[in-house]
């Protein structure tokens, strides 16, 4: 397989911009109309999601080893779309037709064969993982809204009780669909370590114009049934076998996966009496969006291993630390000798990683989710909405 040819041809196709997903979806819906039901009624938010991610993953098939666990998670996650295994060939055929259309004469039999082979590898990883999970978990989970607490002007905290246990690790995300916005799935991170009663806590940041977040606040009620997908994500998850000291940097509801990790470490420490040191920075535009202030202040006062710092960016009268949370975290030097995890909007993550790198943090020590590099990850707008890292 000529991987360089895959990368070159994808770069060439990508120069056609929005025309690429438009052709792809036209082709997919014309050749396989039954796939239309997998996508939202309004396609505007879907545009650059599937085909962009597909092109990137397939053309980077030489780095497959690194993304296999993530592709497996996505394969399991995709079971929430009905009969999804049947649709992999349809999606593959339309991907190839799209490439053929935009590459013209550059779409040679050799290039075509390489793309087909690379797509086959990716699809096989995902389908196999999905099939293996069929024995143990449902395709998607129904969960009851136990409570909905408007924590501030912009933040709501949802408690959900899945009817069947939904396995996840602290730091992962799950896709959520609410009844009033069918097929508009958004990824949210549980803010808790797995609980005995199986309930999940999600933090929803209101995004002006966000189709899902505004509906969560306006239409979702206690007792409603929502749907959840299988857990995905590996960058904000602690490794199985080591517990490095941590610097956690969160913007807005990007705090959720960080809180889950802190809960996990607190529980482990209760059992073993030992564990890493943790310094958590939480940044918000306005002070009222430091919505876990009380809980985290109390934890910091009680637990010598845990430090908590708040930073407010848009309120000049704020008496505490002001500025961007990434700058504050970088200036603190707390990244030295620690693993750093970053979660927030795309802009926040980009800025924070840049600030830490400029301050001297070794690149391999800074972790954040890159959902946009893999299949069907949320778009930048949805990251903003979900408050998870891009």
């Amino acid at each position: 397989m000529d991987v360089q040819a895959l990368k070159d041809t994808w770069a060439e196709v990508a120069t056609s911009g929005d025309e690429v997903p438009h052709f792809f979806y036209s082709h997919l819906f014309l050749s396989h109309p039954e796939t239309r039901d997998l996508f939202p009624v309004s396609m505007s938010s879907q545009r650059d999601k599937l085909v962009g991610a597909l092109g990137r993953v397939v053309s980077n098939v030489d780095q497959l080893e690194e993304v296999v666990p993530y592709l497996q998670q996505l394969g399991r996650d995709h079971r929430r779309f009905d009969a999804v295994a049947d649709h992999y060939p349809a999606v593959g055929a339309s991907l190839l037709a799209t490439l053929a259309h935009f590459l013209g004469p550059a779409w040679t039999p050799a290039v075509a064969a390489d793309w087909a082979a690379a797509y086959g590898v990716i699809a096989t990883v995902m389908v196999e993982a999905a099939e293996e999970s069929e024995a143990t978990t449902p395709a998607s989970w129904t969960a009851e809204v136990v409570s909905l607490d408007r924590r501030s002007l912009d933040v709501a905290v949802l408690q959900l009780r899945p009817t069947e246990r939904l396995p996840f690790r602290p730091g992962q995300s799950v896709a959520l669909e609410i009844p009033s916005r069918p097929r508009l799935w958004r990824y949210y991170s549980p803010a808790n370590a797995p609980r005995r009663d199986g309930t999940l806590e999600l933090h929803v940041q209101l995004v002006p114009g966000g189709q899902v977040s505004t509906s969560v606040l306006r239409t979702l009620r206690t007792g409603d049934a929502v749907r959840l997908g299988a857990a995905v994500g590996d960058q904000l998850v602690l490794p199985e076998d080591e517990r490095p000291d941590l610097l956690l940097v969160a913007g807005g509801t990007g705090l959720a996966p960080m809180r889950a990790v802190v809960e996990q470490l607190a529980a482990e420490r209760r059992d073993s009496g030992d564990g890493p040191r943790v310094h958590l920075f939480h940044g918000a535009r306005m002070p009222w969006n430091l919505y876990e202030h009380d809980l985290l202040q109390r934890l910091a006062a009680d637990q010598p291993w845990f430090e908590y710092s708040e930073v407010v960016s848009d309120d000049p009268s704020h008496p505490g630390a002001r500025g961007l949370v990434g700058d504050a975290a970088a200036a603190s030097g707390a990244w030295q000798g620690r693993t750093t995890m970053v979660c927030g909007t795309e802009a926040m993550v980009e800025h924070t990683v840049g600030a830490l790198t400029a301050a001297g943090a070794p690149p391999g020590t800074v972790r954040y989710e890159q959902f946009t590099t893999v299949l069907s990850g949320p778009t930048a707008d949805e990251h903003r909405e979900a408050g998870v890292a891009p």
Partner: protein
Amino acid sequence: MTEQTVSDYDLVGGGPAVARVVDGFYERVTADPDLAHYFEGVDLNRLKRHQALLVSQVMGGPTAYDGRELGVAHARLGITDEAFDRVVAHLAATLQEAGAPADVIGRVGGALGGTRSAIVTDAPGAPGAPGAP
């Protein structure tokens, strides 16, 4: 499905828009060396008129198709699955260029998908193919 007050036909711009898309579509298929031979000696203007009427009917427009039944019209052309797929790609390109909305394309696809079995005759196991029951 929510109540539909505006037909897809009106939504995309009615007769003139459909005529443009149909013209663009036939420009593409007749320029394709793998498809051109299907159109040799065919009265393209008549074909376009029939196609526009068919599209109008499928999309809830004011006029209805009055040509031959699709299976009959394509029966002697020996159309392969590959040729049908190429036509789908040309239609996708035409609709992409025209900026047609995805939900309209989805409904057109639903109508088109149902015609494959009537149109493709040169396929293993297709009605009329050698060896088919």
